[in-house]
């Protein structure tokens, strides 16, 4: 066991775990943050996407020791803004309004990938959306509604800004 320290959704945490334990499992089992999901466990589906030091990564491929000293944001950190603002984060609101979420398994990852995309391209083109979300698979929506949701969040960006 190794003790690893990091900041998660703004809070300092230390966790004792085997150093090769996947960040995804630490989130879900040790920290009870079950927003990030395991779809494939091999970097293909993006349902475990989180932001690590602001970069979109698949938490199923990160050994926990490599998270030492990092800042991690999970979907719970996005939703956390709800408490502060008493309303959904603009990306969540857009997914809700545009039907970008059905069963919801891919949604936490989609929202973090969208968050990362909009940080880079506040008004993304359809191609930029397709590339930005290409690592996130969805079995339900057929993607079009997700693209609509991202575009709507982008448009809102223009007026409100989606950064935390």
């Amino acid at each position, binding site marked *: 066991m*190794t003790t690893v320290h990091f900041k998660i959704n703004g809070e300092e945490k230390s966790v004792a775990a*085997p*150093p*090769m*334990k*996947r960040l995804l*499992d630490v989130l879900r089992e040790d920290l009870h943050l079950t927003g990030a999901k395991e779809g494939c*466990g*091999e*970097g*293909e589906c*993006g349902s475990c*996407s989180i932001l690590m030091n602001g*970069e*979109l*990564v*698949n938490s*199923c*491929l*990160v*050994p926990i*020791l*490599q998270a*030492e000293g990092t800042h991690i944001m999970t979907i719970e950190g996005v939703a956390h803004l709800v408490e502060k603002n008493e309303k959904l984060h603009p990306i969540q609101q857009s997914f809700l309004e545009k039907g970008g979420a059905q069963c919801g398994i891919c949604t936490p990852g989609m929202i973090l*990938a969208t968050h*990362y995309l909009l940080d880079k391209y506040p008004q993304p083109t359809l191609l930029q959306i*397709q*590339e*930005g979300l*290409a*690592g*996130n698979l969805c079995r339900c929506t057929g993607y079009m509604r997700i693209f609509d949701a991202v575009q709507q969040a982008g448009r809102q960006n223009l007026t409100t800004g989606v950064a935390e």
Partner: protein
Amino acid sequence: MRSNVADFTLIAPPTLNATLEILACDSSLYTPIAGGTELMVALSANRLAQKNFLSIKHLTELRFIDATPDAITIGSGTTFTDIRRHAVIATDLPLLNQAASWTGSIANQNRGTLGGNIVNASPAADSPPALLAYDATVTLVSATGTRTIPYRDFHLGYKKTVLRPDELLYSIKIKRNFGGYITYTRKVGTRNAQAISKVALACLALLDNGVVRDIRIGAASLHETPIRCTATEQSILNQPSTPSTIAAARAALATEVRPIDDIRSTAKYRAAVAASLLEEFLRTLSG
């Protein structure tokens, strides 16, 4: 079946020197892990033969891009995202920029490193054909010093390289003398995005009055290692690209590739597509 993570160890020595010292003491004990986009997949699938890992992901000494007027040197720990964001690579090394953008999803590019792509030594990997076409050199480092060799001598056989267990890949260097070269690269996979190649070529050529004065063809998935197609290059060197020299080049290519049947494709398909890609490239050189 999932591996039992408690069976594995992982350490993260604070510096490159400390890392090399540990590898010098007992290199058989530790396997380096950089972005983990190969090794962690194997861990999940319970396919990891090794038990003890040494993280090099945090070593800033391995993560750099150094552009001088003569050359671009890239640290082995540089991610594909770092490569894509680098303005000089985008303009001077378009084949490498393109390869980086092909290497899995954005999340994968944020973690996966150029060094991991090379040392993992898959014949289907995306960066090797570009590095072969650019005639890159690689520098290997150990506690006893460094050695620099042409990248084309790095791969010895299927997943076998010249890297010693006490060594790390330190950096990859490419000369900046490709002004005026025509570039071509194409990856053929099951679909356009997020698929490992069935066949890929990365090519450079310099024309002088319609005559091919220099040509370099790097290929993936056509041999047990990434290869430079030197017989094909020779077949058209110092000649113009015409239907007859293109036919000769296709014939030369057939003599030097050894594609295989595997889960992604068949040898026959790979050979046929490789010849078509070659022709597509050579046609861009015809007047």
